[in-house]
């Protein structure tokens, strides 16, 4: 009954008039700023951090958490509407979400994303409250070797993202891996492939790359096929998903919540894998995988739930251990420290109000998001009616402002322009950008973990198979690879494509 008491205490804190207001305000601001293409949760929180200084610590953190969920959700909105992922976890949403928007089902996609996220958020909140501590211990089993094997598994998944040729998808993953090696070498401090450009010394940023390759390139492509322009505008369709569609989404949402929540617990940004893994699973078990990439509703519902579940459970290492698993959580640590609470393993016992209040506010924040976003869907969808000659310049301008504001750097805007042309060429030659972005995101983590594991094992590759968790993950990856490579299976696949 501890759980009930604790949650009651948490809701007691979160449901004060002031904290409800702050939670709402945070979600609202987060949504509005997060909808600016290119401005993801990290940039939003960093920008808005100062406005919480005057607030009491619990209220400030509740508001920041609200900004985080809001910005996260805003990123999915841009992914669906204009094919621009706000951050790595929204990349998968562009695949089917934007296709749905093109078919006039933007409202359905946004609605499913909101409802799926709410469900995932609710489950994840209970999960954190009930299992936070034991799960932290479990996550501690993951050392560098286990991580590396997990990333290998993720890369094998990535080939499934491909809608066309698997061969081309593998090439794109490799290109993504290569791009991720740009920057300062982790161990020696030497610059790699930076060509003397100081801006590249910390590697390529995800935002300019993703915006250039996805959003801007998509705009360019739209410009050279005039007949395609009317597709989005032609039919708007219904604003909210129908009962039948909701029913269709229940299993993917459940699976997505489970996968995303589990991966989110891992320190070291395991959450990025969540949506990719969920998409892979949905596509693999679908009766007709060929629908994926052409507006399959499961391809939005699953990954969006995984995304949100992961975003919540990423709080676990922070709240129970005081260690931030990713950049957003590192900002939350900073915010807590500024408010005089240095996060550590004792937050739960020393600041129970803060701990349980935060957890209760997670659920509250998710509820707020639904309340804020369902009415907004109508407005977002109407935006699609805006003629392209007005919408494209507006998107470009907002994107450029967004990109600039992340690092206050002109160079980021220029590199977006560069990747726009790269993205355009890739589309023209039939290469899909999603596997490349996955390679890019995983590449950084993979290299880091690989080198740490190799240093710790003093150069012995056996470390990856000697450690049981790592060995199991590698075995799964290997198994998947074999299935993908078996000629008979592949033939079947092609038949499916041909239908």
């Amino acid at each position, binding site marked *: 009954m501890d759980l009930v008491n604790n949650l009651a205490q948490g809701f007691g804190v979160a449901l004060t008039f002031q904290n409800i207001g702050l939670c709402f305000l945070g979600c609202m601001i987060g949504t509005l700023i997060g909808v600016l293409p290119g401005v993801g949760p990290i940039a939003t929180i960093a920008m808005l951090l100062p406005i919480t200084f005057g607030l009491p610590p619990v209220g400030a953190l509740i508001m920041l958490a609200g900004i985080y969920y809001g910005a996260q959700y805003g990123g999915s909105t841009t992914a669906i509407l204009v094919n621009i992922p706000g951050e790595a976890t929204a990349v998968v949403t562009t695949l089917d979400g934007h296709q749905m928007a093109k078919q006039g089902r933007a409202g359905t996609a946004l609605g499913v994303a909101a409802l799926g996220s709410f469900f995932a958020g609710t489950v994840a909140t209970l999960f954190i409250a009930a299992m936070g501590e034991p799960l932290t211990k479990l996550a501690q089993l993951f050392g560098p070797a286990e991580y590396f094997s997990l990333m290998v598994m993720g890369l094998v998944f990535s080939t499934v993202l491909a809608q066309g040729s698997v061969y081309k998808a593998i090439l794109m993953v490799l290109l993504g891996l290569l791009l991720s090696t740009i920057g*300062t070498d982790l161990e020696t401090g030497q610059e790699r492939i930076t060509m003397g450009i100081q801006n590249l010394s910390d590697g390529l940023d995800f935002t300019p790359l993703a915006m250039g390759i996805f959003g801007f390139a998509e705009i360019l492509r739209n410009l050279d096929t005039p007949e395609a322009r009317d597709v989005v505008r032609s039919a708007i369709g219904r604003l909210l998903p129908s009962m039948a569609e909701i029913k269709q989404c229940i299993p993917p949402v459940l699976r997505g919540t489970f996968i995303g929540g589990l991966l989110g617990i891992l320190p*070291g940004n395991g959450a990025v894998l969540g949506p990719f893994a969920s998409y892979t699973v949905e596509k693999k078990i679908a009766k007709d995988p060929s629908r994926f990439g052409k507006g399959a509703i499961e391809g939005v519902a699953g990954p969006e739930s995984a995304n949100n579940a992961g975003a919540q459970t990423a709080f676990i290492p922070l709240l129970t251990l*005081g260690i931030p698993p990713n950049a957003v959580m590192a900002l939350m640590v900073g915010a807590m420290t500024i408010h005089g609470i240095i996060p*550590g393993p004792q937050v739960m016992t020393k600041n129970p109000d803060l701990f349980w209040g935060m957890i209760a506010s997670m659920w509250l924040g998710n509820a707020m998001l639904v309340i804020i976003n369902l009415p907004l869907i109508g407005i977002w969808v109407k935006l699609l009616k805006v003629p392209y000659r007005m919408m494209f310049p507006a998107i470009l301008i907002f994107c450029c402002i967004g990109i600039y504001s992340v*690092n206050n750097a002109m160079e980021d805007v220029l590199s977006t322009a560069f990747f726009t042309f790269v993205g355009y060429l890739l589309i023209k030659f039939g290469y899909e950008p999603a596997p490349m972005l996955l390679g890019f995101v995983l590449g950084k983590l993979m290299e880091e973990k690989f080198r740490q594991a190799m240093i710790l094992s003093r150069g012995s590759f056996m470390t990856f198979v000697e450690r049981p968790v790592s060995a199991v993950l590698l075995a799964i990856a290997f198994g998947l690879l074999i299935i993908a490579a078996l000629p008979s299976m592949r033939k079947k696949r092609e038949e499916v494509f041909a239908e």
Partner: protein
Amino acid sequence: MKRLLGAVIGCVVFALPAFAQNYPTRPISMIVPFAAGGPTDIIARIVAEPMSRILGQQVIVENVAGAGGTTGITRGAGAKPDGYAIMMGHMGTHGVAPALFPNLKYNPATDFTPIGLAAGTPIIIVAKKNHPATNLKEFLAWAAKEGNKANQAYAGNASVSHTTGILLGTMMPGASPTLVPYTGTGPALNDLVSGQVDFMTDQIVNVVEQIRGGNIKAFAIATPQRSPALPDLPTTKEAGLPQYEVSAWNAVFGPKGLPADVTAKLQDALNKALDDPNSKKRFDDLGGVVPGPDGRGGPALQKLVESELARWVPAIKAATGKK
């Protein structure tokens, strides 16, 4: 939004003739060369708030992260010396950088107007919780015995845990720990807590709660006095390694050639901000050490930068084999 508003107001006011005695007439931007949320950022935000009140103009923290802090400082060094662009320099950017960045575009000792030391965060030597040693002497003996079998974590190239870790290595007789790089304090600490690595050095604010919670153990704090935040932890002097005395100091600099009256105004505001009871409490919370009267002001800071350069650059170059 605030920043945008500030910029708009700034542009309007900028059109008026600006005399130094009226300084400041528009918001001042303080470049923090690290990401928001880290120790330097927190210290900058703690002083920026009272400084804004004292100066009557907003002091806006602008995070320009990258290349161990040198990207932001390079930008700050090139700013117009009118007092509207200042920066929070750091032990790394102004003491160690020349040893790790051969193409550094600024000279820490000559390209800046020193305004004053803000606060330092002491360094602590920490180890995984089931480490066999119980005190610093035993730890040094363990490190000497293990040789390169010992694993030392650090938070990436040019980070505080990197440079202070290398310095510790040069002072441990017979030890040659294997350095394991991470991409930040969080991941490094995570693997220390789970016992993947043996030990590391880091700023008190990053490790204090993990020590209190018993997730890791601490051997010594590298300051002359014990910290009120961890009163039971001996200093390196008490524990038998007196030469290891380091603190990650943070200090406010302007670009070279700041007018004397502007510098004086900023110095005055900084000193008052450090004495503000509210900031004092915040520094205490995070184990930060505010300089006494003789450690403050421009000349003291200039002296500190020069002595730090003299101490760090040869030591780090020798240890990393760079020339």
